[in-house]
C-alpha cells in the first residue's frame, strides 16, 4: 500500500475505559487487502475463544478497503463480531455513507471493545472519538427519532455515517440490526444486540480527507472504465429501475419463491406485490449509497388517511427490497401492499432484521395453525396468513418480550421450534433464518456451508438458475466446488468492499488495475491465494467456536416442497457438505 495512506490506521475504542487510540496495521491490509479479510483477522485477535457474544469481550469490528473513496461501488462496510444469534461468526455488510465516511475519516478499520455502564453514543470527527451521553435516547420508541436527534446534534452532514440501534437492539434481541442512513442495515446475525450489550446507541463517523493515487492518469482512465460500465450496464439498469424487487416475478415463475413458510414455492398473488406493482403505485424516491451511481434503494411513499379526521393524511417513506417482500410478503402469504409496507415500517422502527423476523412470524403462523402454541401464551393474537394487523401486534409483543412464547420468538426459529415443536418447518440454517430463494440444491447448500449462512456468501440461487437454464445437473461434489469457488472470490470483493451488485464489473483484471492505482501491486495468483486464506480464516474461527458442518440441522420442509432447479435431498446435501468441508479444511493450516 502507499506511504501515507491512512487505510492502515485501525481506530480502537474501549467503551469501559472511555479511551481510544490508533494502531498502524499496514501488515494486515497488505496481507488481506481490507474489509472482510482484515476484519476476520482482527476478530481472531480481538475475540477471546468462547467469548459471550453479549459480553464486553466481544469486539465490534468495522472494516473498509483500499478502493473506497477512489472508485464507484466500493461502498460497503464489513462488520464482524461474534453473533449472539448463532453463537458463532457474525459478519454483516452495509452501505449508506458508512464506508466512505470511515475511509475519509482516516481509518481502515474500527474496533470497539468493552461495555459502557450507561447509554452512550460515539462521535468520531477530525480524528477524535468522543463519548456522548445517550441516556435520553435510550428507550425512545422509534429508531427514526433517534436518528433524527443525532443527525441534528452532530456535524459533518453529507460526509458522515450514523449507525444506530432501535429498541430491539437495546433489549438484546439476537436478530436485531444496526441501521445506517435510515435505510441501510447491518441486518443479519444480530449486530444490533452487540451494540445494545455495550450500551452503545449509535456510532457517528465523519470525514472528507483526500486520498493519494500512484498514477493520476491511470487512475482517471480506470475510473472512467468502471463508471461507464456501471452506468450503462444492463445489470445496473435492472437494479436502478425496479431494484431487487424486480426479482419477485422471475422467482415466482421459476417456482423458487418461498410462500407461506415454504409450504409452496410460488405465490398466486405475486403480481400484487411485485417490483412492478410497487414501482407503479408506490415508488416515491430512489436513493444511493455514497459513491454509487446506481441508486438501487427504493422508497415507497405510503399515503395513509387518518381514521379520525377527514382529509388528513400522512405520507411515510418506506424502503423495500426483494428480501423484505419475500420474508414479510410471500412467506407470510400477504398480498396487501399497504399492510406489507406498514409491517416493514414497524420493523424499521424497532430495528429488527427483516428477514429473520419474517421467517419467525411464518413459523409462528404455522405453529398456531397446528395447535402447537397454548392459547394463553399468545396474549390474544391469532396469526393467520396475510393478516398484517395481527403480525404487527406480534412484533410489538416480541419487542416487549410479552410472554414466554414471544420471548422464544425473539430468540429465532431454532430456539422457538426447539421449545414448541415444529422443527421440521423451522426455516433456519446454522441458526440463521432462511433467505428468499428455494431454487434448488445449490441455494440450500449455500445456506448451510456459507460462512455466514447467507445467500450472499456464494450465490447458490444463481448457480441453480444457471444449471436450470443450461439443462445441466450438478452432482454434490460439483455443486460444492462451484459454491466454494464463488465464496472464495467473494472474499476478494468483500475485502475491497465492492458491492456484490457490481460483481459483473469488478472482474479480476479490473480489480488488479484499480488496486494498482491504490498502491497494491498484486497478481491473479495473489488474489487466488488471499481469497483462499480469508475463507479459511473465517472457517477457522467458526471451528474454534464449536461449529461443525456435521451438526447442522436440515429443515425437513426444504426437502418436501419441490424446487425447480433439481430435487433437494438430504443425502445430496450431506455429501456436498462433506466435500465442501474437506476442501476448506485442507486450506486452514496453510493460511
Amino acid at each position: 500500500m502507499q506511504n501515507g495512506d491512512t487505510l492502515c490506521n485501525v481506530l480502537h475504542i474501549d467503551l469501559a475505559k472511555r479511551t481510544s487510540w490508533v494502531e498502524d496495521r499496514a501488515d494486515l491490509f497488505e496481507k488481506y487487502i481490507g474489509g472482510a479479510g482484515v476484519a476476520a483477522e482482527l476478530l481472531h485477535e480481538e475475540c477471546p475463544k468462547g467469548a459471550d457474544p453479549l459480553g464486553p469481550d466481544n469486539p465490534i469490528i468495522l472494516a473498509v478497503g483500499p478502493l473506497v473513496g477512489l472508485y464507484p461501488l466500493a461502498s460497503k462496510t464489513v462488520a464482524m463480531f461474534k453473533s449472539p444469534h448463532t453463537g458463532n461468526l457474525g459478519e454483516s455488510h452495509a452501505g449508506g455513507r458508512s464506508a466512505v465516511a470511515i475511509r475519509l475519516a482516516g481509518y481502515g478499520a474500527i474496533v470497539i471493545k468493552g461495555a459502557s455502564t450507561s447509554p452512550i453514543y460515539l462521535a468520531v470527527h477530525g480524528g477524535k472519538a468522543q463519548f456522548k451521553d445517550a441516556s435520553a435516547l435510550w428507550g425512545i420508541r422509534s429508531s427514526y427519532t433517534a436518528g433524527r436527534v443525532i443527525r441534528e446534534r452532530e456535524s459533518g452532514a453529507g460526509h458522515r455515517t450514523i449507525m444506530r440501534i432501535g429498541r430491539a437492539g437495546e433489549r438484546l434481541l439476537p436478530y436485531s440490526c444496526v441501521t445506517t442512513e435510515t435505510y441501510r442495515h447491518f441486518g443479519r446475525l444480530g449486530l444490533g444486540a452487540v451494540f445494545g450489550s455495550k450500551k452503545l446507541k449509535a456510532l457517528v463517523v465523519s470525514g472528507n480527507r483526500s486520498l493519494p493515487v500512484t498514477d493520476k492518469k491511470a487512475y482517471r482512465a480506470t475510473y472512467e472504465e468502471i463508471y461507464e460500465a456501471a452506468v450503462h450496464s444492463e445489470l445496473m439498469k435492472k437494479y436502478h429501475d425496479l431494484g431487487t424487487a424486480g426479482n419477485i416475478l422471475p422467482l415466482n415463475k421459476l417456482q423458487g419463491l418461498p410462500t407461506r413458510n415454504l409450504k409452496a414455492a410460488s405465490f398466486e398473488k405475486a403480481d400484487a406485490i411485485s417490483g412492478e406493482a410497487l414501482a407503479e403505485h408506490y415508488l416515491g424516491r430512489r436513493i444511493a449509497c455514497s459513491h454509487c451511481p446506481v441508486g438501487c434503494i427504493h422508497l415507497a411513499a405510503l399515503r395513509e388517511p387518518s381514521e379520525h379526521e377527514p382529509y388528513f393524511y400522512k405520507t411515510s417513506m418506506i424502503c423495500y427490497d426483494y428480501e423484505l417482500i419475500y420474508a414479510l410478503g410471500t412467506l407470510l402469504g400477504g398480498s396487501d401492499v399497504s399492510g406489507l409496507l406498514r409491517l416493514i415500517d414497524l420493523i424499521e422502527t424497532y430495528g429488527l432484521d427483516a428477514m429473520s423476523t419474517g421467517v419467525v412470524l411464518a413459523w409462528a403462523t404455522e405453529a398456531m395453525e397446528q395447535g402447537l402454541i397454548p392459547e394463553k401464551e399468545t396474549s390474544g393474537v391469532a396469526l393467520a396468513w396475510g393478516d398484517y394487523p395481527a403480525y404487527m401486534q406480534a412484533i410489538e409483543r416480541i419487542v416487549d418480550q410479552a410472554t414466554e412464547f414471544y420471548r422464544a420468538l425473539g430468540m429465532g426459529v431454532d430456539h422457538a421450534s426447539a421449545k414448541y415443536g415444529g422443527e421440521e418447518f423451522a426455516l433456519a440454517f446454522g441458526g440463521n433464518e432462511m433467505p428468499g430463494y428455494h431454487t434448488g440444491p445449490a441455494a440450500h447448500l449455500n445456506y448451510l456451508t456459507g460462512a455466514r449462512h447467507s445467500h450472499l456468501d456464494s450465490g447458490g440461487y444463481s448457480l441453480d438458475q444457471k444449471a436450470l437454464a443450461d439443462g445441466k445437473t450438478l452432482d454434490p461434489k460439483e455443486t460444492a466446488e462451484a459454491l466454494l469457488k464463488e465464496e472464495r472470490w467473494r472474499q476478494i470483493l468483500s475485502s475491497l468492499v465492492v458491492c456484490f451488485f457490481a460483481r459483473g464489473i469488478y472482474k479480476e483484471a479490473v480489480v488488479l488495475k484499480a488496486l494498482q492505482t491504490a498502491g497494491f501491486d498484486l497478481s491473479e495468483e495473489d488474489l487466488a491465494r488471499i481469497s483462499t486464506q480469508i475463507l479459511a480464516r473465517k472457517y477457522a474461527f467458526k471451528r474454534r467456536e464449536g461449529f461443525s458442518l456435521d451438526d447442522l440441522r436440515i429443515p425437513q420442509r426444504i426437502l418436501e416442497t419441490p424446487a425447480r432447479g433439481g430435487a433437494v435431498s438430504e443425502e445430496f446435501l450431506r455429501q456436498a457438505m462433506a466435500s465442501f468441508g474437506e476442501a476448506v479444511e485442507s486450506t486452514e493450516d496453510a493460511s
Partner: protein
Amino acid sequence: MAKRLSVIDSERCVGCQSCMFACVRRHGHGGLADARIHVRSAGGIERGFVVIVCRACPDPQCMKVCPVDALKPRKGGGVTLDPEACLGCGLCVEACPLGAVFWDEEANKPAICVHCGFCAEHCPHAVLALEEREEAAHAER
C-alpha cells in the same frame, strides 16, 4: 459565452455524490477534501437531497469580504482564487449565504468552483448541467 454550472432538478438526485468525487478526481486524487460541490440530505434521506453549487453570482458576496483581494471576478459570474494571496481567513465561507464556498482543510484555503462541468458529466441522473449563459440573463438566475 461564459458557462455556468447549474442544478437542473435536485428532486432527481439520488445522493450518490458522484459529482463530489468527480470534482476532486479532476485534481488528480481521490477522497473529498477539496470538493467544490456538496450533496447532503434535506433533513433525513427520506426527504431527498440538497445539492449545493456556486451559482456564479454577478456580484459575489464572497469576493466583497476578502481582505486581500484573493478572490477576483470571473467572466460570467463567480470568482477565481489566487491561492498565493489568500490568507486562509475563511471570511468568504461565512459570507456565502448558499454555503457554496467550501473549505479545503488540508490546504487551509477555500475551494472555489471553476464551472468546468466535470461533475455534470458524471451525474448519472441529470441533476446537473453546464449551461451557456447569456450575459443579460445571468443577473436573474
